[in-house]
């Protein structure tokens, strides 16, 4: 028994101990957003050891950083969340002198409205939030959000478990802006979502592609990258940017104010700006990157795929989510009502 306890204590010391020499990095990132190989290579190159945790909503990032109790050095928030985090003073300005690969960023992704001059953020991956469906089961071509409200697909629809995205869909179908703060428009969207609820098999933000592929649902609201992978594996599946338009989003590498390894965080951002590295993420995760130097490293089939890299016409229909300010509370209340019904 004594020896057992001694062993355990030793184990604990080995686990917890180890001095903090600045050669560490805590990364908080979306599920399915980076590969272990890249992290291992980064460690091999720089000697910086990386730990990473995953989340599946932007609000999780805000909550962790705002709690003041987090210890992350890199977070990867979406556009509108970058704006909120900056307003809240939760991010540190980036030191551009340490980011020698900044020039690799595609010009049209620089200086976006949510972070003028890229003072606090560097684009990582971008994509759209549309839906994918099973052509064989549905039996016809779909091109509108109306499909997810269609009684015929009762019990065969999956929606993201995400307040912003679900309200976005309902508002667009009603002909309003996805960023509406108008009370009566939001109430109408809520009523539509309540009406939709019996059709929804499940709300899920983590496994939408897997559930679609398994056949449990026929229509799945979700992010394009994972849905594109599902479409590659099953030719019956197709991804749609609906005619009403959808969310386009840009996820960004940022350094929280509470970061303790700012130096290492800059090294990591610069590493991920290298075309070869971010190209490897694109190949593995199927989302698009905003990096010109990556193009030679990305499989040509992916670059040519309109699901991953939509054409300008499709992108015209899409827009970024905005910061809703105080109106967020009303949406949350309405969202709770949808979920409570």
């Amino acid at each position, binding site marked *: 028994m004594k020896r057992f*306890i001694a062993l*355990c*204590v030793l*184990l*604990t010391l080995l*686990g*917890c101990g180890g001095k903090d020499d600045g050669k560490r990095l*805590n990364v*908080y990132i979306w*599920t*399915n957003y980076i590969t*272990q190989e890249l992290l291992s290579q980064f460690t091999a190159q720089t000697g910086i050891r990386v*730990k*990473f*945790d*995953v989340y*599946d909503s932007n609000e999780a990032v805000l909550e962790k950083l705002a*709690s*003041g*109790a*987090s*210890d*992350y050095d890199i977070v990867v928030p979406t556009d509108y969340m970058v704006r909120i985090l900056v307003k809240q003073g939760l991010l540190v300005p980036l030191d551009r002198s340490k980011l020698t690969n900044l020039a690799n960023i595609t010009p049209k992704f620089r200086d976006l409205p949510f972070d003028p001059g890229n003072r606090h953020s560097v684009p990582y991956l971008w994509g759209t939030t549309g839906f994918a469906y099973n052509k064989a089961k549905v039996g016809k071509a779909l091109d509108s959000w109306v499909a997810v409200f269609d009684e015929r697909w009762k019990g065969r629809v999956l929606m993201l478990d995400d307040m912003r995205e679900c309200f976005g869909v309902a508002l667009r179908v009603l002909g309003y802006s996805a960023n509406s703060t108008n009370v009566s428009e939001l109430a109408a969207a809520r009523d539509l979502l309540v009406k939709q609820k019996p059709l929804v098999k499940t709300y*899920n933000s*983590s*496994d939408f592609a*897997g*559930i679609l592929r*398994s056949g449990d649902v026929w229509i799945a609201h979700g992010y394009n990258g994972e849905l594109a992978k599902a479409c590659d594996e099953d030719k019956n599946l197709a991804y749609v940017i609906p005619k009403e338009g959808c969310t386009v989003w840009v996820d960004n590498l940022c350094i929280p104010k*509470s970061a303790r390894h700012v130096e290492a965080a800059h090294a990591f951002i610069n590493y991920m700006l290298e075309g070869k590295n971010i190209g490897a993420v694109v190949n593995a995760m199927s989302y698009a990157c905003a990096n010109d130097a990556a193009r030679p490293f990305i499989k040509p089939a992916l670059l040519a795929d309109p699901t991953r890299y939509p054409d300008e016409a499709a992108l015209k229909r899409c827009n970024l989510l905005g910061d809703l300010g105080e109106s967020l509370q009303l949406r949350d209340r309405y969202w709770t009502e949808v979920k409570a019904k």
Partner: protein
Amino acid sequence: MLRAVTWVVYAFLYAPIAVLVVFSFNSERQTAIWKHFTLDWYRVLFRDELIGHAVVNSLIVGVMATVVATVIGTMAGLALARHEFRGKRATMSLLYLPVIVPEIVVGAALVSLFGFIAMRLSLTTVILAHIAFSISYVALVVRARLAGFDRSLEEAAMDLGANRWQTFWRVTLPLIAPGVLAGALLVFTLSIDDYIITSFVAGPGATTLPLQIYSMVKTGVTPEINAVSTLLLVVTIGLIAAAQRLETSKR
């Protein structure tokens, strides 16, 4: 009739576990149709660094929480069974609180505390949380064990010239050992299994096995989860069996 109902309930209790174990050896990935036997999912599992890391974290938390909570809880159990002191009733109520307050409330309250005192979330906060919710279990188990305990043995030891520490180590501890062990085992199991509270207080890199399993379950049903579940089952059942043997051999 009664017998039949009883067997049906046992089938209900064990069928899901059996299914889980059997299908961890199935080569078919997508559906629950048996193809043929394979150990592939276990191989995948042993190569998975994230799971390895989560197992180490869970062991660290489990062992630390068990050691600290068992020592403190045993002391409390002794005090409650042996002594009259001011605030004893209040102490009993306090000990029942962690058992009855819903876990979600405990988790949310703890993260509020850590935020309030600006303590960074880490593996340490997980360990603290686990100690907090498990002391009660040890104290209550040890106290129950001491309830039917013969004081004359201790008094005899002291009359024979043993001092308090000797009496404690040589007489009291061996007598309450089964209770202490049962409490420790309970703490370890609770700690290894806790998801709700841990999900609130875990910091960077402090992903424990339940957090890891939860995120795997959320991102899709796969045979790897069957395999990790099976291993977890083997370990917990092994632990209980070991504790049972230890207790019976003591008697």
